[in-house]
Structure formats: C-alpha cells, structure tokens
C-alpha cells in the first residue's frame, strides 16, 4: 500500500464547545474549557465582510485563520482546500424554501454565497491569495478525502497546503436528512518538509474501509453530530502526540495515519 509522509505546521479548531486546538487538549486531559462566543470571530475577514458573510464562511475562515497563524506562514502563499460535507445548510434551506414559494424573490447575494467554494472565495479575497484553491466533499468522509487531496497536492507540487473542513448545523426540513446538529470546523497547515514550525510528522497509508477509530466522550457524540467532526480521531492524535488513527476517505477506502514524531 502507498504511504505518504507529511508535516503539520498549524491546527485550527472551532465548535460550540471548543474555541481552538488547545481547548481540545484540555478536554482530553479532563478539563472543561471556556466555550467560544456563539459566532466565530473570523478576524481574517475585513469587518464589513465579517458582518455580511454567512455562518459557513465565518466558521471556515475562523479555523483557517487559526491554523495559518500557528504555522507562521503567509496565507497568500498557501494553496487551499476547503472541504464541507453539506456546504451552507442554512442557505440551502433558505433557497429551497424561497424557490418553493416565490422563486423570483431569491436573493442574489445568498445565491452567490451558496456555491460550495464560497469560503474559498472569501478566504482568497481576504488574504490576497492567488494560489490554487478548491472546494470538495465526500459525505461523512469529507475530511479524510480532503486530507488525501491535500497531501497529494502538497507532495505532487511540493508546496505547503491549507486544508479546512467545516460544516454548520442543519436548518429547517433539511435537518432531518443531514442529521447535522451542531457546527464543527477544523483546519491544518501541511508541508512536505520538516522545518522550524513543524508540530508533528505523520505518515498516511491507504487501506480498505476499516472502522474509524473509537473516540471517548464527548468527542464521540460530537462526531455523530457533524460530518466534519470525523476529523476528531486525527485531531485527538495530534493533541496526544502519539499513536495511530483510522479515517474514512471514501465508502470503500480508509486512511491509516501514524504519528511519527512531534516537535
């Protein structure tokens, strides 16, 4: 099986319970960290954009900003991959409701914010980044599939990459089918080579589909409530600083990730 090596230089995390990656460390150590304000700060965005941007964009940009700040890299130099299982479910609910009732009333702004790459667009505009950016999804395997794409871009083109994976909660009738009960977002800055800012070196191996790594509570419940929270086994691995985890990358494909060393 193919094995790929990569380094993590920055980690971003946001959920109603977790303001950042340190908060996850605290939870895993038995603590109860202070929850963040209800709206992600997303300070990378200019103030006027922050007021106008939809929740999905604020969440993605909040975690992206955290990870890039931790890496010490300039955001403008990073290729970016924005993964989200569902996109902006609040906008989907708004659009489908409006289209069912008064289709010509549809808001043009909400329509252009409905594209799956809305967060990628806002991010590249805010950071004046002209590097390649993309937006991807793969159901509950969106994080694993996005990670595989990020590592493949990083290695094939030998450049650092920002990976973001986030989903807001479901709204209206759509909630019944998405089952997404609370927001969750995370981000990683990945680089091909060890440097002064390397936090951890990891090894990724493609496997057949395997059960994803079991999680302790409350992480297990968080994972059940949001497809992007399927990143938690890897985030917990990074927080603990050792071990191995298993993620889904597709219906029939898994990723085994081994943490080789931490800085």
């Amino acid at each position, binding site marked *: 099986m193919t094995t790929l090596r990569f380094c993590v230089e920055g980690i971003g995390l946001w959920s109603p319970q977790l303001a950042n990656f340190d908060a996850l460390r605290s939870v895993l150590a038995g603590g109860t960290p202070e929850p963040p304000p209800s709206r992600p700060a997303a300070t990378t965005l200019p103030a006027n954009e922050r007021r106008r941007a939809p929740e999905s964009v604020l969440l993605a940009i909040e975690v992206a900003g955290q990870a890039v700040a931790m890496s010490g890299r300039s955001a403008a130099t990073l290729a970016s991959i924005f993964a989200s299982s569902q996109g902006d479910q609040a906008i989907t609910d708004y659009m489908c409701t409006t289209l069912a009732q008064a289709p010509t009333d549809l808001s043009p702004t909400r*329509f252009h914010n409905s594209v799956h790459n809305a967060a990628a667009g806002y991010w590249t505009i805010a950071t004046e980044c002209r590097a390649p950016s993309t937006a991807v999804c793969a159901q509950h395997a969106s994080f694993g599939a996005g990670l595989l794409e990020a590592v493949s871009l990083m290695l094939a083109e*030998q450049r650092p990459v920002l990976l973001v994976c986030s989903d807001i909660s479901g709204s209206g009738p759509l909630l019944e089918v998405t089952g997404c009960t609370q927001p969750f977002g995370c981000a990683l800055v990945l680089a091909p080579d060890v440097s002064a800012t390397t936090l951890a070196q990891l090894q990724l191996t493609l496997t057949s589909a395997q059960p994803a790594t079991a999680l302790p509570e409350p992480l297990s419940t968080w994972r059940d409530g949001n497809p992007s929270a399927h990143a938690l086994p890897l985030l917990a691995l990074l927080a603990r600083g050792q071990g191995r985890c298993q993620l889904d990358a597709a219906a*029939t494909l898994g990723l085994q990730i081994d943490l080789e060393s931490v800085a």
Partner: protein
Amino acid sequence: MPVSMTPLAITAYTATSAIGHGLAAHLEALRQARSGLRPNDFSSAPLTCWIGRVDGVEDTALPAVHAIWECRNNRLAWLGLNQDGFLDQVRAARERYGAGRIALLLGTSTASIGATEEAYRRLDADGGFADDMLRPAIHEPHSLAAFVTEALELEGPCLTISTACSSSAKVFANAARMIRLGLVDAAVVGGVDSLCDSVLFGFNALELVSAEPCRPFDAARDGISIGEAAGFALLERVDVAPDAPRLLGYGEASDAYHMSTPHPEGVGAELALREALLRAGVDATQVGYINLHGTASLKNDEVEAALVNRVFPPGTRASSTKGFMGHTLGAAGIVEAAIALQAIEHGFIPGNLGGSTPDPACGPPFAWGNEQQTVDVALSNSFGFGGNNVCLAFARAGFRA
C-alpha cells in the same frame, strides 16, 4: 515550487449536452452550427430565458439496483455514462488495474439540489420531507460521485470537486497528481450539472441571464443561457496507450478579487493559463485552438477577449461553444475539454456560435465560423465564482513540444 507534469493518456471520453448524446452528435451539431438552446420549458415557475436542456433525461431510468439514487442529475449522469462505449472502457480498466486503483473525481456545482428543491415543494403536512424524498444521500453535494462510484464499481479515492463553473476542469489536475504519486493507476474524471430552479432563478437574481439565446463575444451580448450536461474521461499513463490524445498540463489560480465578478485584468485567468503552458512545456505560438470560457456575460467575455489578445498570436484559433449548449456550469469544464479533444482529433475548429456582430474587443484569433485546420495543442478555459480559474492543455498523441 516545481511546475511540471508527466503527460497522461486520455483513453476514453464522452459528452452529453443539449446538442446531443455522445461525441458524434456533438461533432455533427458543431459542424452544422446548430444550437441546442430552446425557450425555457423547465423551471417550476415561469422565467423568460433560453436553456440548454438535454433530451431524454426524463426517459432514462437508473438500473433498479441503483434506485436509491434516482434524481434528474443522476439520470443525466447515467445517460452520459452510456455513450461512446465509456462503461466498457471503465470496465476494462477495472479489470486491468483493480477497482481500488482507479480514482473517481467528479465536478458539479449543484449536484442533485433539484431533488431537494422538489422535496421542499411538496413537504408533508407536518412540514417534513415526503417519504420518497427521505433519501439523505441525494440531498448531499456528493450525490453524483457517490452514485457514479457505485455504478462503475470503483473502490479507489472518490472526491467531488465543487468550485462552481470550473469544477469539472479541476478534476484533471486532481487526477494528474494522484497518478503522479502512484496513489492510483487511472482516474475517471468528469462532471454533471442538471437544470434546477436554484441556478435558473439564482443567475436571474444576479441579472446575468439573457432573455435571448446567449451570444458569447457578441457586441450586443446581454447574459448567459443556462444548460445541463454530463461528461467523463478516463486518464491513464501514456505507456499503456501511446496513440491516445494527452493531457499535457493544467493551471489553477485564484483571482482574489470578487465573489461573482472576474478580476478586471484577468489576473487569475492569466496565471492559470501561463501555468498550464509552463506545465505542458509549450509556448503560446504552439497552441492551435482555445475553447474559451465565453459565457456571454458582459464582464467575462471582455476580460477573456483581452487575455486572448494579450497572450496569443493572430494565427491561434479561439471560440466559445456556449452558444450551442448554454453554460453548463459545473459540467462546462469536461464538455468543453471534450470539444477541445475533438478539435485535435478531427482538425476541426468550431465557430463561435452567437457572435454575429463580433465585439470589436475580440482580436484576430477569434474563429467566428467553422474552420478546418490541424490542431496539435488545444486549451480549455474554465472560470468559476469565487475567482476560481482553470486552464487545461491537451495535445495529440506523439506531440513533442
């Protein structure tokens, strides 16, 4: 950062759009300059515009074993997969490499959102989805790729790329990277987008839709016509198919300018173009044909015409083919890649349908009518909302820069 790429063989490809099912129907319509656009007969409420509707989608049933995936977008996908012997080619590749050694990388902007729209139009008395709509997998943007991976019985990496109107161009770059790293031996790439209220009323709200058939690069152009399409390609290493046309290069870049308007100087589009040429190892004078993004929106065509004037000599031929099938959004990249490959295969430059009064900003490279000319290298431009730009470079087998 090194910019290089090992060329890949395109061992099979197909396209289905408003001008027909499969490559032969496309070539025929292009040769006859016959548009597939028609007055809008699709949206759930009246809307004055022209659309590129694919005939026969309603009559295409999914195999019973895949009934859970039933929706317009997946029916269009299945219709597209059944053209040009594509299913057989994938089956042969699966037998050669193994199901786990083939990636599936598909672009779509809205996937099966039309099914979610329908669910909202006929909610139960209690405000929930009707029983037949309680199929979570079709209400996700991954619906298309999840269905196709099951239909093709593939078990390798499976990813949806959704960067609006550049989606199914970007998939070629994803595939090139995965094959280069040895993660897979082959990749099925492509894209499908189908007509739905979201895009018809959404682009209407942005005042980007013409009331007439779209007129790319025409002086009097006043907006896009929305279409639907499906297209697929099979990519493998050149050594297994030395006579197949090739993907030579790709370029991807961001505008960093605006969510729904291109950069006025086409900065991201030019970066993507120059990176594609660099990766392909060719210069602009070697490009025989460019299939332009050419949506017929005022701004896109102005910026793209200036880019063509800036980069290419008079002898390069360039046209938009959106006058034929409309803007097929997330499927535009793959369908227009197929047209670029047909240009190479048949030495045929399709004329820029709809440009009867050419915008004076368009320079000598614009092919306003059909032309017959050898094409060694063809490019395809695809630009999406969020300032997402892609350029692909294709070449005939055996071409050496």
